[in-house]
């Protein structure tokens, strides 16, 4: 439900939502009891519908507790998933993986389109200092924390040192990723205006680009650590090809999209779905990073044409449904028994990330001589993690299947915690800074 509508929602609405959610669970549980054996393909239809509805309703009900919608989607997925009620089985969860591909493309395209040059210029100095400190110091420190705690992480136990260092670097890179969707959600809800809102938006969108490039570099860099040998010139050439190629493909795509939006501008949902599925596969085939390409495409449409708002609106429309299924599927994918074993370590990693984010942000703000409000609250928007982080973890699972699943479970556990705490913190900061408009 929209924020405006949500604010009007009274006890009657919540009661109806709770009854509907209960009825959905009863219906699906009854169907699962009566016909427990079914091929994954046909179960997928019902699963998408169920996760879509249950996620939406759970998010509405959790809103009463001040929790963000994303927590509701995740919770619905966890409860319905193979480890709790088993309404959505493992095969179905795997069959839903194409949704991840589409969601990532939309996140990247939307993230790029949010990155306006004018905004970047206004807070360029603050953002560049912040990004350098958070990405550089944050990556190394949080990778180090992971190394220190690795003996308590089940999937990392017994890994040889070079592999462990590689995993720690991947973790560090993921740890410096932020959540554009959470930031935009809170800004839309509070209608905040002011230096903190501007800084947060620019910082998070720019960090999207940095993290995507950083991840591509780290993946190429750590491959030799896993497979043996060192980083050769060939590896660097591959990396260069991947980054430059991705930017080139993204620029071409952006120009084509801008032309389409200007000349035709219809059926954008179908176009985005086609791009999300078709181009992602094509880019993988030619060894181009789809995330970076879509990010560049969004940036080009926003800054080199007048079609940015149209693209943003279309991405918003397409992603409203895709994200619910994406996050709910991520919840269903959560290995609950593993999480039971992992929660202390997830909590420690989250705490370490929050502390490092706080310290590096304050430090960078002082060096950049930011206004006091940014020095004080600039870190608050950086705690959330969501779609981009989960998406990058999918990339890691695909690239390193030998430890990927365990790694992803830990990522989901930490994202779940960060996503519950982060938006609440950011909203609190906007309220305290006096930038919230409601």
């Amino acid at each position, binding site marked *: *439900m*929209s924020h405006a*509508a949500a604010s*009007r*929602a009274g006890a009657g*609405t919540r009661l*109806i*939502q709770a*009854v*509907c959610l209960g*009825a*959905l669970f009863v*219906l*699906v549980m009854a*169907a*699962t*009891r*009566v*016909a*427990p054996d*079914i091929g994954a*393909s*046909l*179960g*997928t*239809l*019902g*699963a*998408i*519908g*169920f996760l*879509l*509805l249950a996620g*939406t*309703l759970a998010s509405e009900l959790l809103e009463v507790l001040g929790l963000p919608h994303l927590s509701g989607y995740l919770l619905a997925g966890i409860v319905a998933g193979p480890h709790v009620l088993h309404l959505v089985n493992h095969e179905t969860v795997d069959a839903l993986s194409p949704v991840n591909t589409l969601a990532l493309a939309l996140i990247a395209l939307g993230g790029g389109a949010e990155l306006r040059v004018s905004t970047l210029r206004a807070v360029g100095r603050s953002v560049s200092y912040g990004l350098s400190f958070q990405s550089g110091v944050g990556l190394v420190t949080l990778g180090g924390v992971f190394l220190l705690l690795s003996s308590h992480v089940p999937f990392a136990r017994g890994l040889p040192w070079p592999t462990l260092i590689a995993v720690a670097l991947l973790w560090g890179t993921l740890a410096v990723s932020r959540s554009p969707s959470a930031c935009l959600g809170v800004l839309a809800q509070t209608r905040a205006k002011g230096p903190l809102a501007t800084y947060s938006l620019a910082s998070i969108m720019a960090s999207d680009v940095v993290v995507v490039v950083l991840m591509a570099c780290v993946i190429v860099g750590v491959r030799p650590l896993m497979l043996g040998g060192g980083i050769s010139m060939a590896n660097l050439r591959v990396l260069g090809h991947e980054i430059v190629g991705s930017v080139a493909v993204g620029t071409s795509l952006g120009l084509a999209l801008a032309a389409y939006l200007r000349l035709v501008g*219809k*059926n954008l949902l*179908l*176009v985005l*779905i*086609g791009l999300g*599925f*078709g181009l992602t*596969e094509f880019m993988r085939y030619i060894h181009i990073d789809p995330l970076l390409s879509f990010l560049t495409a969004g940036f080009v449409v926003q800054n080199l044409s007048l079609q940015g708002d149209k693209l943003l609106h279309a991405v*918003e*429309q397409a992603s*409203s*449904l895709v994200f*619910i299924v994406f996050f709910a599927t991520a919840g269903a994918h959560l290995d609950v028994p593993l999480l039971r074993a992992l929660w202390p370590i997830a909590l420690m990693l989250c705490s370490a990330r929050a502390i490092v984010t706080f310290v590096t942000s304050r430090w960078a703000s002082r060096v950049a001589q930011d206004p006091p409000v940014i020095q004080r609250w600039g870190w608050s928007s950086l705690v959330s993690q969501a779609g981009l982080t989960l998406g990058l973890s999918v990339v890691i699972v695909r690239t390193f299947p030998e430890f990927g699943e365990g790694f992803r479970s830990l990522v989901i556990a930490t994202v779940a915690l960060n996503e519950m705490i982060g938006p609440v913190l950011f909203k609190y900061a906007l309220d305290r800074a006096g930038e919230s408009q409601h």
Partner: protein
Amino acid sequence: MNAILLLLGLLTLSYVGSALRGERAIRGIGLASGAEYLCLGIALGPRLLGIVSETLLEGFEPLLVVGASWVTFIAGLGYGRVGERPIAPLRAALGVLGATLVGSAVFAAVYAALPLVAPALVPDRLLVAGGAACVSAGTTRQAVRWVVERYSARGPLADTLADHARASALVPIAGVALLIALRPAPGLEPMAFAWRVGLTFGIGALLGLIALALLSRGLTRDESWGVLVGTSLLSMGVATRLGLSPLAAAFALGLTLGTLSKRRAELSAMVRPTERAVLLPLAVLAGALLDPRAAPAAAFVVPLALGARFAAELVRTGLLVTTSRAARPAGLSVAYGLVSTGEVTLACGVSIALAFDTPPARTVLLVAAAALLVGEVVAPLALRRALGRAGELESPDGPSWSMPPELPARGSDAA
């Protein structure tokens, strides 16, 4: 061809379908039933060019189920109305009775003649006869709409035919629900047949009520889409899981919303553009699914079913001409106009073929395809002649390219 390429191809067809749905396009481009896309599917399918293989088709089965069920969901949402004009209950009842008469005639003819023309299918006599009846009972509203819009027809006969076509959609969908309930999931076998049929529609009705409750709480357009897509997919998924008809469940969902929701017009306007976008990929995949080698008896069953349908339509038209003053000048040419079939017939044929996946079920799909193609050849011309004789064509010599703005609300079936 790999799955991604096929998916992109289907998305392209959806795009074309969306573009064709414009008011001008439907009067100028494409056939009323989308039969040309069925032919494209036959050409691309495993039996001719082999670009779409059997394995790919199996992988795309869920999409076929979704496409077919979405078509019936839209039919349910707009049921009982032509555009914004509600159909009079008596006329709706006559439309349903007429379609039931045609379906019963086809059922009786195929059931009785099957031991003579195709003894191998006798063990599945009920499926073949019932399936042929389902795919022969309906008249597509698109054909009526096509002629009405193309030749600017308006008048009582045009309205009557549009009403009958719209009302007839219930019969094939209910028939498919009955057929599929004959063979449910093992866990549902102890339940009585009538309860199983009731459960099929009950799933849709329950989810319709849930959707109704959620949609009445001031949702935005995106959130409304979430509710519509979520409930319809869930109705299809649950019905499929229980071995019941997803088409009937989706129809019941649409019907519940269309009947009870205050936002019916808004919801219809939202889903209307998706119909053609779904129909074209569905027609292509259905065409690829056609396999005459897997259904050798179709050579006998198809002419039998079509012949029975033509005969039954003549009887039905005879009754119509006797009882309706508006139909009298048109005479029996109305009968040939009523044989047009379209999206609902195709959805029913596909659903039966997928639910049973046996040679008799493939025979039913062939009957559906043949009915679609024959209807496309015969019906538009016959409808034009009938409306011309009734003096309801404003531009009888050729297509009208400039519609009076008030016409769709009266004669066309916009929703």
